[in-house]
């Protein structure tokens, strides 16, 4: 059984690692890809991240090839097709790993231990091993050979986006880190920066973080606000609307596309802008609902963060890995059977503003989830920059996946780790909100407020507006979004 690396560190070191996260400036990337120029980069795993990162790196003038398991090559599996049709050199671990200066491990978390154990003995003296997620190092305590440099480069978008943005001449926000226990030559940072340039990430903004901060914030964000809250919210809102006699097709559509629409406002102007899209009475209503939700859900967010910090979450999940994913697969099947998932979106027009007006509760849920996740992470020692990216910043990305094909698509796109955490959250949150939902009517979900008069009390409106704007996630959000002020962001 593995050893949790984080738990082996003294508290002050844990806190120091959690607090690492800095938005890097453009001039820190002046060397471009030169640290990787002429080096042999071998990618393991040719899924969406593996293939698209490889395409970008090659187009940046770097030498990229793909190492696949012998069976994948002889059976000409999809990963082999992906790599060879794109004109890459493809070979077995035995053929390519010994020649590699940098090995890019882009396989799913679950395979990391097996993959790293297989390749480590073959790797060149002094080579570099790169991850795009720190789970294997931090939660499983993988011990990497002392002579190897270990870095992380994690584009904060799905693989297809990583490629599409690069082709446009841009990139996606990227997190980089160096595992300080494995940086024998002190070249880890230079390599990680060059890698980020090679994928185009430097143009969209790079965060210098640590393996620990990345894992602990990433796990927290994905299982609470990002996937958990959206799944629980979808199921509760849908069932409520049906119980109240709202047309099933309309309800299904309002939710499926509603998350995407309301979080688009979040992406551009934070929680404040998302609530500013509502009428004044609706805004006050959404604010009050979210305050109530935060009070009810805060213990659950604390529990998730605690379990992540002390390793309970990863231990329990790895037990399920060892048990052939029995829980995960069962929960996945359960989700597919929910009424929301089985009701197709109706053929009705819903105007952009209507998603806000008739989805006040959804707005309240997003606000509550973002703020709670942010508050819980920062209270646990994760700094504002990381907490912002793992809560507010990624919410629209996940909402997009629901718009495509509901919860199925979301759970298929996110990692198994996120999916597992999402189900845990959902199972706990559904009963937790049972009583709250009893008092919910269609004025806040499905039909909108019916008001003859949209007047509000000035004093109350001022209070609500001030509270929205004073939340710390808004301050760091404004700063980080400001870094991209000169760049017209892609729609």
């Amino acid at each position, binding site marked *: 059984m593995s050893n949790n690396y984080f738990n082996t560190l003294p508290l002050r070191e844990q806190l120091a690692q959690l607090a690492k996260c800095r938005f890097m400036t453009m001039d820190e990337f002046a060397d471009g890809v030169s640290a990787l120029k002429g080096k042999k980069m071998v990618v393991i795993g040719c899924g969406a991240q593996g293939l698209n990162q490889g395409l970008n790196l090659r187009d*940046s*003038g770097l*030498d990229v090839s793909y190492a696949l398991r012998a069976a994948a090559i002889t059976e000409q599996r999809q990963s082999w097709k992906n790599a060879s049709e794109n004109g890459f050199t493809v070979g077995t671990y035995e053929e390519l790993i010994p020649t590699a200066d940098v090995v890019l491990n882009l396989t799913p978390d679950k395979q990391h231990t097996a993959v790293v154990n297989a390749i480590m003995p073959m790797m060149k003296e002094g080579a570099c091993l790169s991850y795009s997620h720190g789970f294997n190092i931090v939660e499983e305590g993988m011990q990497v050979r002392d002579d190897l440099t270990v870095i992380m480069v994690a584009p904060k978008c799905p693989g297809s986006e990583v490629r599409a943005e690069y*082709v*446009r*001449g841009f990139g996606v926000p990227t997190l980089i880190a160096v595992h300080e226990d494995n940086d024998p030559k002190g070249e880890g940072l230079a390599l990680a920066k060059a890698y980020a340039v090679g994928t185009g990430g430097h*143009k969209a903004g790079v965060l210098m973080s640590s393996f620990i901060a990345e894992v602990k914030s990433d796990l927290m964000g994905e299982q609470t606000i990002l996937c958990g809250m959206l799944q629980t919210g979808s199921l509760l809102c849908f069932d409520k609307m049906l119980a109240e006699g709202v047309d099933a097709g309309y309800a299904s559509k309002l939710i499926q596309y509603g998350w995407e629409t309301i979080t688009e406002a979040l992406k551009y102007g934070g929680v404040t802008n998302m609530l500013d899209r509502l009428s004044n009475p609706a805004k006050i209503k959404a604010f009050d609902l979210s305050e109530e939700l935060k009070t009810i859900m805060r213990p659950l967010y604390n529990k998730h963060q605690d379990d992540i910090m002390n390793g309970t979450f990863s231990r329990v999940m790895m037990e399920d890995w060892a048990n052939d994913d029995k829980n995960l697969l069962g929960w996945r099947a359960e989700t597919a059977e929910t009424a929301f998932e089985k009701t197709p979106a109706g053929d009705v027009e819903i105007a952009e503003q209507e998603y806000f007006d008739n989805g006040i509760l959804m707005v309240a849920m997003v606000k509550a989830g973002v703020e709670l996740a942010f508050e819980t992470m920062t209270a646990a020692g994760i700094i504002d920059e990381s907490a912002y990216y793992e809560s507010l910043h990624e919410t629209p990305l996940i909402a997009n996946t629901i718009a495509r094909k509901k919860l199925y698509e979301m759970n298929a796109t996110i990692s198994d780790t996120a999916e597992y955490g999402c189900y845990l959250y959902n199972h706990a949150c559904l009963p937790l909100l049972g009583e709250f939902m009893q008092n919910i009517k269609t004025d806040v979900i499905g039909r909108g407020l019916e008001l003859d008069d949209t007047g509000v009390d000035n004093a109350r409106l001022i209070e609500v507006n001030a509270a929205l704007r004073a939340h710390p996630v808004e301050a760091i959000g404004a700063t980080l979004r400001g870094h991209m002020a*000169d760049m*017209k962001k892609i729609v």
Partner: protein
Amino acid sequence: MTIFLDNLSVDFDEHFQLHNLNWEIKETQHWVITGTNGAGKSALFAALMGAGKHLSGQIRDLPERIGVVSFAAQEELINQERKKDDADIMDVISEGTPVRNIIFDDCLDPHTAQQLIARFDLNYLLERAFRQLSTGESRKVMIIRALSCKPQLLLLDEPFDGLDVDTLALLQAHLQELVAQVPMIMILNRFDEIPAFTTHIAYMEYGQILHQIDTQDAEAYDSLYQLLHLKTTDLSVPECDADTAIPKLDQAQPLVKLNNLTIKYNEFVLIDKLNWTIEPNQHWQLSGPNGSGKTAILSIITGDHPQCYSNDILVFGFQRGKGESIWQIKQFIGYVSTALQWEYRVQISLRNVIISGFYDSIGLYTKATDRQKIIADQWLALLGMSARADQPFQKLSYGDQRLLLIARAMVKHPPLLILDEPCLGLDDINRQLVLALIEKICAGSETSVIYVNHHPEDKIAGIDNYLALHKSTP
């Protein structure tokens, strides 16, 4: 009564013909005819007046009384006056016909004539000889004559030319008063002179009426405006930006050299051992049916096709796959295609779309220099889009987007410009707009052009190298 021109063809001197004109002018309509010099606008008026050698077709229901204002009519009247002078056998200096007679002899509507003389403040020259008037003065007299003949149709060829500002305003006001009484056809070459009451615009070129639009159709109106602008502007293609100029290429080396290019998907071979060399300053047309691999070959050149790494390709001095970056290749290429237009889904202003051409990006992710902004604005002026510089690209019409993307492709003066079916999906006006812009570009730069088209017979001027592809069968 509606006036009809049915398949009218008329032959004039100097090898000029009006071809196959089909046109209806309803009583309630007011037309403006535009077009470049030599398009046949004045010839059309002349034909309506019965000039030229009638070849075929007919004019039906032309009214009896037509008021005409044109330099040609003015010149003719002055010539008549001159002849009278020559015909004078007495040895006295002829004063010529006084203005009063020019206006009032045969005048059907003396009341209107009086009114206009007062309005234009011309009482002072009624007794002067017509041929002693200045051009502007004689113009005003012509206008008064035309308007006071109880016209059933007005033909006004550049009626506002040569008028001072006050008179121009007076004339426009008077025409406005006639709107309900008489249909007008005006030849105007400046869109800003088109009166608000105009109901239709016709665009002429090569002796034909190429476009007839309703002024209510805002999109067509804008396109026509731009077409005329591009055809008549003195502006030329703006300079490139010296600060971000593309590195100089070795002129002895080919721009592109494809050696035995093979593109295949699984077992299907799309392109089989193609050799193609493009030398500097060569223009090429690439043609072939759908699915023959035109776009695939181009994306091999631009570096967008992954199989560019598994082929023997030399582009702009780079042997592909030797550690060059895609941006080092793209800096030498300007590229326009329908696919690019579809890909260009970003929130961005017109100006920034052009500036993005300096960075080969879709969207703008780098702070532009002041110089680049100036150049972008020069391009917008050339395109006739200056007033819309800060508007969102996505709100533009399809044709305007295409024009802008061509400007984006050319802004850095690339050694190679690839136009992959640049007219695809465009209507007639926009097709001509695009071709007018390409003509302008080809005339003013040292860029080599690859022009892609389905039809090998659809050639454009200046292109003298051809590569025709055949469809591969799977």
